[in-house]
């Protein structure tokens, strides 16, 4: 009998594939060098820094009020959340009180921004998995949120609306009614996107059990936000250390079980619903009053250093602010959630297929503007 087995006799060579920075599904200018054996990823080396603008260094040369705009441009999908964290850092350092109405406006807009950010995620995640319709559904709804932002802040992105000590100006008179109508539309739109994508057999086959990470490893990598909550760790700054007025609302933290791509996806879908619950409660409770505590244009906070935490759509953001009493900060360091989440990519992509690599990277929901700063 002739031995026809070729096992161990064929020479196979690993191929190096350079994915990015121009690859369409690396969500920006992320680049990874993959060593593949056929379709299977044997090893990889992530490269970042293509969008490094030195934001932290730039902050050292700007007045406090000007830095808010730099924070807008870090995580450019959730601008308002980023503005809020910096303003909170300065307020904490100065002991500046924020009017209640401003806090409510901030919370409403930040949660709305969270919905917008997660909608974008759901759409692009669909694209990564090969479905082209969800992004259209998601963008239809996101567009309405952007119009709302435009109505309130005057800009669709890069709002510079949240200011140190409050917000730029009051919301339009018909804000409550418009928000009510918007929430109704959003709820319906999210349900539609959910029905179209979440439980499709092919989508489940592509995402279930793909890119599994356990809670301990995720914590060791410093993952946070929905990506960590998908592993079953209920870590959310809004609950752990309630800032602003978050302790006045009744909402839950969606947590996953297995820490796979599908859990990371669906945690975000559920989070949108929770965010809308927060917005509804905030709209009911919103008091009247001033929207900003007047302060000088050139702020000189006292000497000291402060670290504040906040919950961004992508995870936990932190700002470490060192002041020397001058009109410009001495050092600003941001803890970017995407940066830490992306660090785990090496762990997640081991022994997966190229097609999975795209899905897993998509499920982390990174924004390169924030990773590179």
């Amino acid at each position: 009998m002739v031995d026809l087995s070729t096992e161990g006799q064929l020479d196979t060579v690993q191929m190096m594939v350079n994915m990015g920075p121009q690859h369409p599904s690396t969500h920006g200018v992320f680049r990874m060098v993959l060593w593949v054996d056929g379709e299977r990823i044997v090893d990889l080396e992530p490269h970042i820094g293509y969008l490094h603008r030195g934001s932290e260094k730039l902050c050292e040369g700007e007045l406090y009020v000007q830095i808010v705009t730099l924070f807008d441009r870090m995580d450019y999908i959730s601008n308002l959340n980023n503005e809020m964290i910096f303003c909170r850092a300065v307020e904490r350092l100065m002991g500046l009180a924020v009017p209640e109405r401003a806090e409510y406006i901030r919370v409403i807009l930040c949660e709305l921004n969270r919905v917008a950010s997660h909608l974008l995620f759901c759409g692009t995640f669909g694209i990564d998995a090969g479905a082209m319709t969800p992004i259209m559904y998601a963008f239809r709804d996101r567009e309405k949120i952007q119009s709302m932002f435009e109505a309130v802040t005057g800009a669709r992105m890069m709002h510079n609306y949240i200011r140190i000590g409050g917000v730029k100006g009051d919301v339009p008179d018909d804000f409550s009614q418009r928000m009510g109508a918007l929430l109704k539309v959003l709820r319906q739109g999210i349900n539609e996107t959910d029905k179209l994508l979440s439980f499709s057999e092919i989508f489940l086959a592509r995402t279930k059990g793909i890119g599994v990470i356990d809670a301990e490893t995720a914590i060791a990598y410093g993952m946070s936000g929905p990506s960590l909550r998908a592993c079953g760790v209920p870590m959310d700054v809004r609950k752990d250390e309630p800032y602003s007025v978050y302790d006045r609302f009744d909402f839950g933290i969606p947590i996953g079980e297995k820490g796979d791509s599908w859990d990371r996806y669906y945690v975000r879908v559920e989070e949108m619903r929770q965010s809308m619950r927060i917005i509804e409660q905030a709209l009911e409770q919103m008091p009247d009053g001033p929207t900003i505590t007047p302060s000088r244009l050139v702020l000189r906070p006292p000497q000291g250093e402060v670290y504040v935490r906040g919950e961004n759509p992508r995870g936990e953001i932190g700002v470490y602010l060192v002041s020397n009493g001058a009109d410009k900060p001495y050092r600003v360091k941001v803890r970017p959630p995407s940066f830490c989440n992306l660090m785990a990519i090496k762990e997640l992509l081991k022994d997966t297929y190229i097609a999975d690599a795209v899905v897993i990277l998509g499920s982390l929901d990174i924004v390169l503007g924030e990773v590179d700063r």
Partner: protein
Amino acid sequence: MSALETLLLVLAIFGVLTGLSVIVLSLIWLERKFLGRMQMRMGPMHVGPFGLLQPVADAVKLMAKEDLLSSLVDRVVYWVAPLAVFVPTFMIWVTIPVARDLVIRNLDMGLFYIIAFSVLSIVGLVTAGWASSNKYAVLGGFRAAAQLVSYEIPLILAVLGVAMLAQSMNLEEVVNSQSTVVYALVQPLGLVIFFIAGLAELGRTPFDIHPAESEVVGGPFVEYSGAHWAVFFLAEYINTFAIAALTVLLFLGGWLFPGISGDVSALGVLVFLVKTYLVILVVFWIRGTYPRLRIDQLMSLGWKVLVPLALVNVVITASYMFYGWSAWSLSLMSLAILGAAIWGLSKRMRTAPTPEYTVKLYVPAPEASNAG
């Protein structure tokens, strides 16, 4: 062959070429408009009425584009590849009838000829991937090879079932034998296998694995531009039309329709076209709905599900022919097997009941939330 016959043949070939080009343009428009409507967009609307001239504008743009060429490509193979994809897709139209007696050559082994030629286009895709000297193109080319070769088998087996029922491989006779009842009703299993395998042959969603934009950025075509890319594009749409046409001819009764006499050729062509476009709309509909499978899932679907099912289909058809059962029994058997297969597949893919597929809501105890 007389001079007149030769002239007629040349004219017919030109007719097919022109007709197919027009059909491709219409398909491009239809796909964009249809997908647009499914996705709450308008689709093309600025060039011509209802954007009807958009495909023409696209074609002009593609022809006018510079042909970019990487310095590392294997030039001969690189230029031959589009032709290797394009020629077989045109060749199969030699024997596809669009109405009674409206066919260039009515071959007795027509089905055999079509299958033999359609396999050839794989060579073009692999060479395109190889010659481009691009790793994504190579990956795409190999994906295409694996995918197309393995889905050829269920496709052929599904066609075999029809050929057995019609006792002919001549497409006209296959259609004529459906004058009482179409084979879609006799052999629903065969129709589903043929359609799924056809989608995979076309590389359309959910089987668009070799041109997958989000993974291999267009696969074998990634380095092609301008007119050469347009040739691939043309071939893809002609293939789509061909698979839809074959579905109509083999399973949906071709140009036959109750109450419409097939003898009038123009009417027959109309019926045929309407049916084909409806099948194509289903293809587009699937594209707008589903995500993409992974290559290993595609292979297991092909080899572990479709091939066995296609064999079962052949066996039950053979039993029906041999024992002379009634057509109803074959139809019911076919439906039962199809239902069982779909149920099993759905169970296999879901792996567990639905409650597992939700995310729990964690609400911390009040004292924990107030701390800090």
